[in-house]
């Protein structure tokens, strides 16, 4: 006890002339700590183990993080590799300054060339491909719907371009909120259903990965509430959910400038909190399926709708052209329908000059200096493409890089050969048999026209230059013309059309398995061709005679092998949400000369 008293005595005089007044007790502790030899103490093994685990995960993940440099290294952002052959995700607003080719640094200290593949200006996502290796370290995509508020996350990237040695900055924090909606700020760029984190992200983190504590890729960091301190983190960052990006992935691989969707209707919250339609386009499919102003939205895309933001969140994660189930109510009458989403923008808006506002990763434009202005102030031109990779970029309107669309076309159409060679199959094709309802039919598809006799009626579609595509039989969405499209595709493939390209993938009819989608255009007629993703079988197609009209939806099944050529056994035809008929093919004959 004497020592303690001595200590206290030593303390007293200090305490009197000191802000430590009143906490003399504390002094004792501190004095004792001060006189103690340098101590080590036992940290709970569980704590050390957890730390070691985190260190391991972080170092593994870091290898997949990309430092993207633009404008001669003066600008840039971040990205993350998602495949061994070099596909990497980043933000659109990172790549737009960088041109079609860019330099990318990895944590191995190496610098790689990369080429732009596809962009989503609305969702602020870009797909690029790093070149020169087929064994890139890469992240594994997680399921961002499994995230919970409070979960630990890693953010990695190149904030303030600190990574002069390409080693990413690793920050660690929690999920602050989920399904956040961030309004477009004077641009077409809109963050929907995004993940809010308090994990520190700053300008330059843009395009970098958000990982779960377990190391799964959960999102792409792209935006923050920086207004308070001006381009410095203030506790709120936002990441585009990986699940949204998954829906766009094949669209991005198609090398296109992809678009988001709208329903053709706007919604608002009623006093009682219900979400109701307050405006709708008469020409929209939603309108044709019966949606009207004042109708209450119950659920959309399988998620119930309780706020306008939520509606926007659901809409925002799908590419245009997807089919979503919409459930709405009017005076207790509940209607359920499947709708194809319309384009959110005109092509010009996407490719055009609409600029995203400054964001992480984009350095502010140099201010024009006073007169006279030195020429040196000008923005440096984007780097010239490296010779050896020039061929990896093909310009085409509406595409970020048409080269990759060509590759995808090859892949998808490779399966077609197994249907046999129809190129020689000139003259009329006659398919005859019974519908599921038992009515006999006879379908003749020839160069001069398409004819169908069915239920004692005859339908005809002329095919000379002048003739318009007709809705024959009525309400079929133009079955006869669709058959003509089918014939041209089998016989001439892409050569049969004005435009022909790979779109991406989507669930067949909004519910089925993911299928590859090709688009053909001939005059006003637009067809969506569906291919099974394994063998590339042609599963069917939708043909639209004129914009804003119901499509004729053709689905094939079964197989008739006729001297090396494969024909469908049944052709199901539906339109405007209803099935017209399911034609069971019994005989296929091919004869030279015209049909009658």
């Amino acid at each position, binding site marked *: *006890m004497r*020592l*303690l008293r001595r200590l206290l005595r030593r303390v007293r005089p200090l305490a009197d*002339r*000191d*802000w430590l*007044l009143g906490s003399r*007790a*504390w002094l*004792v*502790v501190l004095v*004792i700590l001060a006189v103690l030899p340098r101590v080590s103490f036992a940290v709970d093994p569980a704590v050390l183990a957890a730390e070691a685990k985190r260190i391991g995960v972080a170092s593994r993940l870091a290898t997949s993080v990309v430092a993207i440099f633009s404008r001669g290294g003066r600008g840039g952002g971040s990205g993350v590799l998602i495949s061994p052959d070099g596909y990497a995700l980043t933000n659109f607003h990172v790549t737009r300054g960088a041109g079609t080719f860019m330099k990318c640094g990895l944590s191995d200290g190496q610098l790689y060339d990369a080429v732009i593949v596809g962009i989503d200006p609305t969702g602020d996502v870009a797909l690029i491909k790093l070149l020169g290796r087929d064994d890139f370290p890469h992240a594994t995509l997680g399921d961002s719907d499994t995230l*919970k*508020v*409070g979960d630990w996350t890693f953010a990695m990237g190149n904030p303030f371009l600190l990574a002069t040695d390409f080693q990413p900055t690793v920050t660690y*924090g*929690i*999920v*602050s*909120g*989920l*399904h*956040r909606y961030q309004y477009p700020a004077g641009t077409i760029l809109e963050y929907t259903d995004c993940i*809010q984190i*308090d994990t520190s992200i700053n300008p330059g983190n843009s395009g970098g990965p958000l990982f779960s504590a377990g190391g799964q890729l959960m999102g792409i960091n792209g935006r923050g*509430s920086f*207004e*308070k*301190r001006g381009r410095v*983190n*203030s*506790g*709120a960052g936002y990441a585009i959910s990986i699940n949204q990006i998954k829906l766009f992935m094949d669209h991005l691989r198609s090398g296109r400038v992809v678009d988001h969707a709208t329903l053709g209707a706007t919604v608002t*919250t009623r006093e009682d*909190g219900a979400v109701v339609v307050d405006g709708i386009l008469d020409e929209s499919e939603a309108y044709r399926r019966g949606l009207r102003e004042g109708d209450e939205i119950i659920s959309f895309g399988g998620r119930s709708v*309780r*706020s*306008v*933001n*939520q509606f926007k969140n659901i809409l925002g994660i799908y590419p245009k052209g997807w089919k979503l189930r919409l459930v709405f109510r009017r005076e207790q009458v509940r209607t359920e329908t499947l709708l194809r989403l319309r384009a959110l923008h005109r092509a010009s808006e996407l490719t055009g000059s609409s600029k995203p506002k400054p964001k992480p990763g984009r350095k502010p434009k140099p201010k024009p200096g006073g007169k006279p202005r030195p020429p040196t102030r000008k923005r440096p031109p984007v780097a010239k493409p490296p010779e050896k990779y020039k061929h990896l970029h093909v310009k085409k309107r509406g595409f970020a890089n048409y080269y990759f669309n060509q590759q995808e076309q090859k892949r998808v159409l490779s399966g077609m050969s197994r249907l046999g060679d129809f190129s020689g199959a000139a003259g009329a094709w006659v398919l005859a048999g019974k519908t599921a309802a038992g009515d006999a039919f006879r379908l003749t598809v020839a160069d001069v026209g398409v004819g169908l006799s069915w239920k004692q009626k005859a339908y005809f579609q002329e095919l000379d230059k002048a003739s318009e595509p007709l809705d024959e039989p009525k309400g079929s969405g133009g079955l006869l013309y669709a058959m003509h499209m089918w014939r041209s595709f089998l016989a001439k493939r892409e050569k049969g059309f004005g435009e022909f390209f790979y779109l991406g993938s989507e669930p067949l009819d909004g519910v089925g398995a993911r299928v590859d989608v090709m688009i053909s255009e001939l005059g006003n007629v637009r067809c969506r061709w569906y291919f099974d993703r394994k063998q590339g079988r042609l599963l069917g197609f939708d043909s639209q005679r004129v914009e804003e009209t119901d499509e004729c939806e053709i689905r094939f099944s079964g197989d008739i092998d006729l001297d090396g050529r494969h024909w469908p056994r049944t052709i199901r035809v539906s339109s405007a949400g209803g099935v017209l008929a399911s034609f069971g093919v019994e005989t296929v004959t091919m004869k030279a000369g015209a049909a009658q």
Partner: protein
Amino acid sequence: MIHRILTIVSLLLLSLTWCPSIAHGQSIQPTIQRVQQRTVKVFGAGGIRRLHAYSTGFVVSRQGHVATVWSHVLDTEELTVVLADGRKVRAKVLGAEPQLDLAVLELQDKELDLPAWDLEADVSDAGPGTRVLGFSNMFRVATGDEMVSVLHGVVAAKAPLATRRGAFESSYEGTAFIVDAVTNNPGAGGGVLVTRAGRLLGMIGKELRNSESNTWVNYAVPISELKQPIQQIIAGKYRARQRDPDETNAVARFRPLQFGIVLVPDVLFRTPAFIDGVQPGSAAARAGLQPDDLILFINGDLVQSCRVFKQSLGRIDAGTVLKLTVRRGDKLLPVELPVPETPDTPETPKKPEKPEKPATAGDTK
């Protein structure tokens, strides 16, 4: 023997790092859900001149009383509170304690039976290093039934926000939880700071700049400070506190010359309080002060400049003892001077010292 000391020490330490370690749940989800249910979004006045028109609040009674920060947002008839489940309810200000930046709202819908904080049972205390979560609708990220934002961090310090020199532009001057998370953002005021176990620590205050370090401060006002006012406001028997007069009338009553101290010319923004001369026979002379002594502390507070010294002199009470610490060479010397019974009055012969205004080069000798 040493063991005894250490046991005592451990108890002492305990007194500070001690926080009830209840609910060692493996997940913090229950905590987050529990707090979210008790947190509301407040929408009111603002929107102009970059003033945000929203803030946060927390439910303190099942009948629907909400505690929040006292701010411009409440300055309206059209006050709306959005509950965790998305319900919109009208509210009115029941009472406020400006000195604590505290206001209590009353929801107009009497039928609600809301999950509410129990300011007795749910409250806890914490010291540096204690892990905390901050809940608020900062930047108005959440609308309708969307959950407010959650930030993680630790208590950086539990310390007084304000010093007598007004380092912080805040009306709250007591001890606060200072945190290492960026909790105090636009609209975050009125949110809550809780332990990971879900114990209530404090109310997130309004945005605040530390004028001494020119940085934004992230802090929360301890519930222990707010509990009584909140309960009294709800009970309808609350008197707003009187500002302590010493703070309000900071007019200088004493001046250096009354102690025989002549300071160096106050020419810089921050002229160190060097003694330029000591008047013979004065208190300063008796206390042994000398020219070139640097005055470092006045009654325990750091004196950063002549101006601060003059201001501090203005606050001392007649008849007390003035404790100074001066630096002479490499030594610190404590000195004590008696404070005269009669404060300086306007009648006294005009001295060149002008403590109220930043003094200028002319004001010595």
